[in-house]
Structure formats: C-alpha cells, structure tokens
C-alpha cells in the first residue's frame, strides 16, 4: 500500500502519492525528504494524489512539510473531486489527470472532405488534404501531408504543448490546447511551403517547418 515517488520534470518536481492513508504517506514522504530533500530546494511541486483521503487538513500538512524544504507546491492533480476542492481551498491549482495518450499515431488517407471529422486521442497523420469544412481533432500532434484548408485541433482538450504541421497551412481555424487562431481575414497565402503552428507566449504562432 501507499508508495511515494518523486520525479523531476521540465517544469519542476512531481510528487506522486499512490493511494493509501494520508498519515502513512506523509511519514514516507518525510523520510524521503530527510535523505534527499535538500536537492529539491527552490522547486515548484506538482502533487499527483491517487488517494481519496486528502482533505484540507491533510493537504495543509503536506504543503507544510514541502515548505520546510523550501519547495513551493503549486498544483494538485487528482481524480477525486473532494481532493481537488480541498486543493482549491488552499489556493492551489487543481486538475483532473489527463488521459494517457495512445502510443501510435493514426494514419489516414485524405482528402478529409467537407463534413468529415477525424477524431483520435493521439497523434494524427493525414496523407492528403484536409478540405474546407473537414476537421481533424487529435489529443496529440497533427501532421497533414498536404493542404490543411479545414479545421485542425491538436492537443484536445487542453494540451497546449502540441503542434500542427502541414505542407501547406491554409486553415479556416486552428486550435491547440486552450488556444485558438484564425488566419487574418482575406489573406490567402498558398505557396509559402511547409509550416508548423504551436503555442508561444499565450498565442498560436506559425513558422516554417524545417526539420
């Protein structure tokens, strides 16, 4: 039962608490931090909590422990709405875990015609065009080996780290995670070559696709 793991990520530290009863988990964590806590100083921490028993009190104790090691808890990820509510009460960001993405890409032959929709949890590769009125919605990246003239939504519903690639990017609408972009009105720009769209500084930007 229980079990604590600590992972370093690009954003900082993720501490995963797998189920079990909070007191034991806290004790385990204290033990681990006593031996290696000083390496983790100054980091932001995301808490992934797989237990239903963390209320406001338990979370407060957990955060107190982290702060003693100069760590800054910012976010709680949990399936349990009670745990997320408790986290919010303490001023922490609270999210549901994002579903695991399939490992393989979906490959589909185009054209994706007006009225057709391709939906997949992972990355989608379209060999051919996505026509106006057609749409591709992917949990992962979207690669269009052709003209993208319809709608593409990568990182659905909220993964803004995803990208859209197309040999020719002339969409009616682009969405990546929580962001949305429309091409400027009246501007058609065929012949610009392959391009990729991604989120940078809170907006979708487009640049040549060179790799």
């Amino acid at each position, binding site marked *: 039962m229980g079990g604590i793991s600590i992972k370093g990520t690009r954003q900082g530290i993720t501490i995963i608490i797998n189920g079990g009863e909070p007191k034991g988990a806290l004790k385990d964590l204290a033990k681990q931090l006593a031996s290696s806590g000083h390496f983790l100083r100054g980091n932001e921490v995301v808490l992934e909590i797989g237990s239903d028993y963390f209320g406001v009190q338990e979370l407060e104790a957990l955060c107190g422990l982290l702060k003693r090691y100069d760590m800054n808890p910012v976010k709680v990820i949990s399936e349990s709405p009670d745990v997320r509510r408790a986290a919010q009460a303490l001023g922490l960001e609270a999210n549901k875990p994002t579903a695991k993405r399939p490992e393989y890409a979906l490959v589909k032959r*185009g*054209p994706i*015609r*007006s*009225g*057709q929709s391709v939906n997949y949890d992972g990355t989608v590769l379209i060999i*051919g*065009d996505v*026509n*106006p*009125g*057609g749409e591709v919605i992917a949990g992962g990246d979207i690669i269009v080996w052709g003209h993208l*003239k319809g709608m593409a939504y990568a990182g659905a519903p909220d993964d803004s780290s995803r990208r859209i690639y197309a040999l020719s990017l002339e969409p009616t609408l682009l969405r990546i995670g929580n962001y949305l972009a429309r091409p400027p009105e009246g501007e058609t720009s065929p012949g610009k070559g392959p391009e990729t769209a991604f989120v940078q500084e809170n907006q979708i930007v487009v640049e040549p696709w060179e790799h």
Partner: protein
Amino acid sequence: MEAKVITITSGKGGVGKTTATANIATALAMAGNTVVALDADIGLRNLDVMMGLENRIVYDLVDVVEKRCRLRQALIRDKRFPNLFLLPAAQTRDKSAVQPADLIRVCEELRPEVNFILIDSPAGIEHGFHTALAPADEVLVITTPEVAAVRDADRVIGLIEAQEKGPVKLIINRIKPEMVAKGDMLTVEDVLEILAVDLVGIVPEDTSIIVSANKGVPVVLDHSSPSGQAFKNIASRLLGKEVPFMELKGRENILDRLSKLFRFQ
C-alpha cells in the same frame, strides 16, 4: 443485357443535374444503347420538361412503387429515339413516397432489359439523395466552378464514399472560358485539386442550353453547340472510349496574357 445504373447528383441545387441527365441519356441512346432516364426528384420533376415529354405522362414512379400500374406502363418512349425511355417522377407527392429499397427494386426489374439507367437526383443530402444513390453502380457528381458548389460537391463525395458507392466521377458544368482566362473563376485544375476524383467531363456555359431546355430538345441534338459536344464526349467516356478533354480557350487579349507572365506587385 445487364444495365449499368448511373446516378447523377450534386449537393448544391441548380448546377445542372437534370440538364446532364437528359443530355447524357440522349447521347447514350444516339450511340445505340437502350436507356432509361429515371427522375428521382419526386415533387419537383423537371426531366420530362427537358426531354419534351411532359404531356405524355400518364403514370409515374410513385404509381409503380405503389403498384397502381406496371413498370412498363409508366415508361414513356422518347419522340426521336425508340430506344430511349423516361420514367417520370410524381409531381404531387414528396420524397418519402419512394424508399431506397423501392428504387433498387425498380432498377432490378429494368436491368435485364436495358443498357443504361440514368437517375436524376434531387438537390441536397437528405432522404431523396440517399434513395437516388441506393441502386447506383456508378455516381456522377456535377458541380459548377464556384466555391460554394465545390464545397457541397466535396461533402456529397464524402457521403458517397462512406457508402462505398464510389469511385465518383466528376462533371464540371458552366465553365466560362473568358472568366477562367482572366483568373476570375476557379479553373478545372483548382476544382480537381480540391475534390481529388476522376474527371469525366467539362461543359461550357452555353445559352443554347437554356433555349433547348425550354423547347424540350436536349442540346446534344444541336450539332453546332459546344455544350452538346461536351455531353456527347461524356457519353463516349462512359462507354469506355478515350476522348480528349475540350480546350476551353476564351479570347484572351494581349494584356491578359502579359499579366499572366508577370506578377504585378
């Protein structure tokens, strides 16, 4: 004989389905085939007018389906070609009067007797479209070179492919060579790039079509008309002949040609 059933459909209305059905059916008959032109546009029948047979209608498709007459009694023989027949639509009923299974049954009965059954569809993607598609061995999608019509053709082709009724063949109607030359209209290449299907014909804009439709004389009977020639070419291609596509050249003035050579910034 085992007839080939060809449905002519479009998505957007008014792009020339009925005109194409009347002319291709007539052209196939002129080439010696036994042909039935079947009007599946129940409630908005036009095919009889375009073929000049409206005042010969006694029974119609709905009468056949509802067994008020035998199929043979509803078939109207053409005035000029004894091997061309019209099966008219009912004007006083709506699309729900004929179900997909009904049209399949009617075509099965005709198949051993004729070479071609051409079905004229209603506009749209509702019930009547699915009924017209049900018996098809081959589908001709017709569009004009306009963005909205091409968009609707794309939608319809998607639906046809989803029902595994393809491969679809495309007719582009009402090309205006002058406008194409000026770059004011989608070109054949533009349309094909979007729709990615095989082309079976390009028909120019032609005022003689309007005259002929009003007179009930299909334009393929007018040997001097360019659109009539285009429809005859389509019939030949459906018969498996290789016919080169017409060069639709408009009068291009020297300035137009220059402006194509240079990109004015």
